[in-house]
Structures are given as structure tokens and as C-alpha cells.
């Protein structure tokens, strides 16, 4: 993997190669970072208290690794007004860790006072778009750094779509001034399950707003012909191909692996990270020094 500077014309902070920080992977992540082969980690904001950041994460900061707080519970697309305390958690983590940005999702997670425990899709309607925009603007008021919004995978689709997914996402980002966290695995999963074809979606997205990219591996359901985005398997070749196509089309500041379970041994994890870096090509440095913060 090269250590060349980020692609000319990249907007947003160069991040390089990254991974979702999980306690089960802390040792492997530390070793890779200490070897200068990791640019950033993403932490789940709900799991980290700003006043009690795990030593492992502080150590990564000392090694020059950037940390991006990632929320999973803001429910920006939910009709309830956004919870200021949840936004404050993201803001406080960004301050504490010197984060260049924070991220969340274009989804809802609760309704009618009931937690779903999952990121649920939004109807692609003008009303839903207005709700998402309003909540996102309210959240941005409280954030000291830019916000990137992520597209989600879903097995269910709302009836009555008034616009394409690309149009919905583009409008949400444009009206809120947010960046794009493009989850390529989610694009691939949805396409595989009969949703928007990947090429169509990528063609319609404002790639100049890209902050970074997620990849991950899922599994086919045991009882159904559907692909479930579980983050518990190695990133499949189709997702890596889509990543390579994306990187030929646009400069990407960073790409990271999401793994949430069935954790692999270190050698396997590093091999997967190397594959991701290779698919992304020379534009994504995997060295911490390339981001200029080491």
C-alpha cells in the first residue's frame, strides 16, 4: 500500500484506511496502527462516554490515528424532534478526540415510544425528506464539526415512493449541507435483494460530498433467498468490485471495514484490510502519516 498523499481535489479530511473499533479487535487494531498501516477508526458513540474513553482509543490517538464518532440512535428521520443529549454525546466525543467529523444515518430507530433496536428505512416522500432535513439541521446546530449521513440497507421498502433513492439522498445532503458516508455494502445488499441497481444509485449520488466509505460482509438467510447485512462475514468480492468502481469514478478520502461479530483472527483481519486497500487503489493511503496528523 502506498503512502502517497490523497488524491488531488479530495474534499474533506483525508482519512485513509480504517476500521470500526470494537473491543474484541482492539489488540489487532493497535498492532496495525503501531505498524503505521491504519489511518482512522470509527467508534460507536453510544458505547463510549466522553469522560471515560477507553485507553486503547486514546493510545490510537497518540499514534496519530483519527477517530470518527458514529451515532446509531439519533433517529434523524423519525418524526420526534432530535434528542439534544444524544447529539451532545457526538459533539463531546468529537471535541475530546479531535475528530474531523461525526456521522449518523438517514433512517429512524424509534416510533410511538417503542425502540426498534435497528436502523429502519424512510419512505422516499417529500414529507419524510422534510422531517429528515429539519432534524439534521437541528443536530448540526449543536455539532462543532461536519456531519456525514449514511445510507442504510433494508429488506423492507415503503410503498408510495415519490422519488428515487439517489434523488432522496442528494436532496437531503444538499438541503442540510451534510457530507455523505457511502456504505457500499448496503448499496450492494439492497441491489442484491431487488432494490435500486448499484450502478444507478452511484451515478445519482453527489460523490463530491463523500466523507468516507463503509464496506462489510453479510450472509444469505438460512430460510430465505435474501442477503442480510450482518457485518459478521468477510467482505464479499462483489462489494470490493463496487468499491473499486467507485474509486475509479471519484476520489475517496477514506474507506473502512465494519465487523460486528464472528471476529476473525488477526492475520485474516489484516488480509481483509489489505484487500480493501487494494480495491480502493492508490488514492486511499493506509499510512497514518499520510493524513498529516502523526
Amino acid at each position: 500500500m502506498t503512502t502517497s498523499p490523497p488524491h488531488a481535489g479530495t474534499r474533506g479530511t483525508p482519512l485513509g484506511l480504517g476500521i470500526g473499533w470494537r473491543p474484541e479487535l482492539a489488540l489487532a487494531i493497535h498492532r496495525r496502527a503501531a505498524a503505521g498501516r491504519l489511518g482512522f477508526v470509527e467508534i460507536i458513540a453510544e458505547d463510549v462516554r466522553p469522560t471515560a474513553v477507553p485507553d486503547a482509543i486514546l493510545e490510537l490517538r497518540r499514534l496519530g490515528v483519527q477517530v470518527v464518532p458514529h451515532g446509531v440512535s439519533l433517529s434523524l428521520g423519525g418524526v420526534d424532534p432530535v434528542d439534544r443529549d444524544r447529539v451532545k454525546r457526538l459533539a463531546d466525543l468529537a471535541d475530546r478526540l479531535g475528530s474531523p467529523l461525526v456521522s449518523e444515518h438517514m433512517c429512524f430507530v424509534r416510533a410511538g415510544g417503542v425502540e426498534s433496536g435497528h436502523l429502519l428505512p424512510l419512505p422516499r416522500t417529500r414529507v419524510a425528506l422534510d422531517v429528515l432535513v429539519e432534524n439534521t439541521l437541528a443536530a448540526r446546530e449543536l455539532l462543532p464539526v461536519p456531519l456525514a449521513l449514511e445510507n442504510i440497507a433494508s429488506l423492507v421498502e415503503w410503498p408510495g415512493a415519490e422519488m428515487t433513492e439517489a434523488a432522496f439522498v442528494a436532496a437531503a445532503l444538499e438541503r442540510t449541507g451534510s457530507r455523505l458516508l457511502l456504505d457500499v455494502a448496503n448499496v450492494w445488499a439492497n441491489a442484491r435483494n431487488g432494490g435500486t441497481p448499484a450502478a444507478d444509485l452511484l451515478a445519482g449520488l453527489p460523490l463530491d460530498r463523500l466523507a468516507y466509505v463503509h464496506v462489510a460482509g453479510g450472509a444469505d438467510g438460512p430460510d430465505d433467498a435474501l442477503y442480510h447485512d450482518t457485518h459478521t462475514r468477510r467482505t464479499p468480492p462483489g462489494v470490493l468490485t463496487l468499491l473499486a468502481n467507485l474509486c475509479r469514478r471519484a476520489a475517496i478520502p477514506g474507506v473502512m471495514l465494519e465487523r460486528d461479530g464472528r471476529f476473525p483472527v488477526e492475520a485474516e483481519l489484516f488480509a481483509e484490510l489489505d484487500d480493501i486497500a487494494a480495491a480502493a487503489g492508490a488514492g486511499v493511503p493506509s499510512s497514518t502519516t499520510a493524513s498529516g496528523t502523526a
Partner: protein
Amino acid sequence: MKRSDDEGRAAGEAGRERLALEQAALVAALAGSAPPPAGFDSARTEAAAAGLRHKRRESAARAWPGLSEALGGRYAAAFDAYAADVPLPPGGSAADARAFATWIDRRGELPPTAWFELFRDRLRQGWPARAGRCQGTVAIGVRLPFAGVRCWKIGSVRDTIPTR
């Protein structure tokens, strides 16, 4: 002009109220407590609901591995029974695992190793002194500033997960 502004606002509010109801209906369908809302594919909704049940169970196990280990092969069925009974509490999978342990405890089905885990967990979270009984063994515990929790047992029930 004012009238159409008011009409526009009212229409917007009506649209939001409808969206709120539709979102609540989807959450209920995915939790298995209601049929899929009109216009949603029922096979897909059931597949998504099954995925959510699996995720909830796995997340709780990850949040409290000692509990799922103590239950062993019984964990999945026991957790699914709890999850069908109790909606996901706020506070994430840690709160969910705690609520699950309490739920089984009330049924008297919490195995001893898990019982002691729950005892220590309650000591960490609640009153700094606690006493309890598990199958004839009495446990007493305190939470000390800067020293964590300390527990003592009077009885023969084992506390540790047997090594394999």
C-alpha cells in the same frame, strides 16, 4: 396569502402525523406485535423481523457474555421468549441483557453462575450493599469507593463458570 400558508402548514402537520403513525406501525410489525402495514411485502417484513430478533439476541449476548455462557444451549430459546414478552428497553443491549436476567430470575430459572453475575451487576448499579439467596446459599455484597464490589458466600453453590 395567509390562508394558503395556514393550509400549507396544516397539510404539512397532517403529513407528519400520518408519517409518525406509519413509522410506529412498521416498528410494531417488525417487533412481531402487529401485522405488516398496508403496502409492505409480508414475506420481507417477516424476514426483517426474524433478522431483528436474531440481532437483539446476539447483541444482548455480546453485552453480557457471562449470562449467555451460564445458560448455554438454553440461551436462545429463553431469550426469544423474553423478547416476545418485553419490548427493547432504552439503554441499548446492556440494558436489554440486564432486563432479560431479571425476567428469568423472576421465573426462578436463572442458573447459579448467572445469578451471581446478576447479583454483582445489581451491586454495581444500585444500592451499595446487598444480600440474596441462591438455592440455599446466601450471598452478601458491598460496593466500595475505589475498590469495586466485594461478595461473600455462605453455602455450597458454585459461583464460577466451570472451565472446559
